[in-house]
């Protein structure tokens, strides 16, 4: 049976992890490769690296990081942040990324999805969607959730699927950072409307939130950052608990 995936997300700036980390066995807290290796050992099913640098050299630094992660890590990983062209994706895949995620660039120019799918195949193109509710309607937001658009989340998700994306990473800006649980109602609606996997993101604070998003939210995978970085929840404990709850999980 296909298992539900647990995905730690690492924020990267200039080739280094951003958020504070208190892993005792980490020699260099800012080294994404070392952190990735630890997560892989602890049972993460996949990793996401989100690059938030804004420097001239960001492309080269990111490609270099991807190369070193691929060298060491034996689970799949996705790279996102600032990707806006076929060339960007080509460099990352060539250096060993398994998937790339695109966000604002796809909203600005949806044909980018078609171009990437034609060149690299659906299986490595993840479309990340940040959305929040405005007057009860889920609206897509850009630039890390800062800039609202008039685009409806569900309409956009359908278009993304039609254009050939392999997966959707949905972050609820209403839930992100609250540690109050995932946006399960919207997630379940997404899963009923589209037939590609959906990764839930935003709101993880407790083990029960993961159980809920896999059952009520019908999510195929769940992504979280700070609760893993700060060891509030150990991946191993989380997965054992989910297994006990009857959720298909890889231990």
């Amino acid at each position, binding site marked *: *049976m*296909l*298992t*539900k*995936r647990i995905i730690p997300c690492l924020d990267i700036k200039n080739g280094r992890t951003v958020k504070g980390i208190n892993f005792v066995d980490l020699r260099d807290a800012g080294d994404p490769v070392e952190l990735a290796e630890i997560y*892989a050992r602890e049972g993460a*099913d*996949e990793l996401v690296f989100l690059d938030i640098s804004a420097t001239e050299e960001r492309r080269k630094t990111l490609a270099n990081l991807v*190369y070193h992660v*691929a*060298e*060491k890590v*034996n*689970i*799949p990983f996705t790279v996102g942040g600032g990707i806006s062209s076929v060339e960007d994706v080509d460099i990352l*895949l*060539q*250096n*060993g*990324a*398994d998937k790339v995620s695109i966000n604002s660039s796809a909203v600005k120019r949806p044909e980018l999805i078609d171009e990437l799918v034609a060149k*690299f*195949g*659906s*299986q*490595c193109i993840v479309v990340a969607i940040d959305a929040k509710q405005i007057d009860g309607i889920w609206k897509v937001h850009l630039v890390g959730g800062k800039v609202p658009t008039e685009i409806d989340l569900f309409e956009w998700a359908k278009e993304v699927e039609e254009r050939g994306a*392999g*997966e959707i990473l949905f972050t609820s800006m209403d839930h992100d950072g609250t540690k109050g649980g995932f946006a399960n109602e919207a997630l379940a609606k997404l899963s009923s409307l589209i*037939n*590609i*996997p959906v990764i839930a993101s935003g709101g993880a604070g407790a083990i029960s939130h993961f159980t809920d998003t896999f059952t009520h939210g019908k999510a*195929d*995978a769940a992504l979280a950052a700070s609760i893993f970085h700060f060891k509030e929840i150990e991946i191993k404990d989380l997965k054992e608990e989910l297994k006990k709850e009857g959720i298909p999980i*890889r231990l």
Partner: protein
Amino acid sequence: MEIVIINYGAGNIQSIKFAIQRLGYEAILSETVEEIQNADKVIFPGVGEASSAMSKLRLSGLDKIVPQLKQPVLGICLGMQLMCNSSEEGNTKGLRIFDLDVVKFPKSVKVPQIGWNEISSLKSDLFTAIPEKSHIYLVHSYYAPLGDETIAESEYALSYSAALQKDNFYGTQFHPEKSSVIGERILQNFLEL
């Protein structure tokens, strides 16, 4: 030992090279007929779309070379699918090594299948020391049905071939290079054939 990863412009071959390195071996990427023919082990990767990958193979003449190889050959993901008779994806004729036709998953499940699934009914020395129901990582929309050459099964909407073998030809639908320690052991088994 000479390990060659066939480099015909299809997919993420860097990860396979690194996985082999982690096992203490070195692999070279090559598209040269002679280098491929003289290797001790050949890995035939593939990510992307079947018909365009097959055109690339034809363009370099490798479609004629691969089925004639005598040493152990491992097709991974799309590589395995191209070793079958045909693929429904882009109505593609395959290399006809495995006597199976690759078809698309039904709409009753999410397509592509992405993630970790179990393998069972393990046969062949490719799975030495691999327990039944081990988890492996897959990303695919098309599958090879079960057949006489099936050496591992998996389930997604239906039972299908997670791995195939015919003589010196092996194929895995999953990515051993991305399947954690289980995948590394399977790769090691192949390299030690």
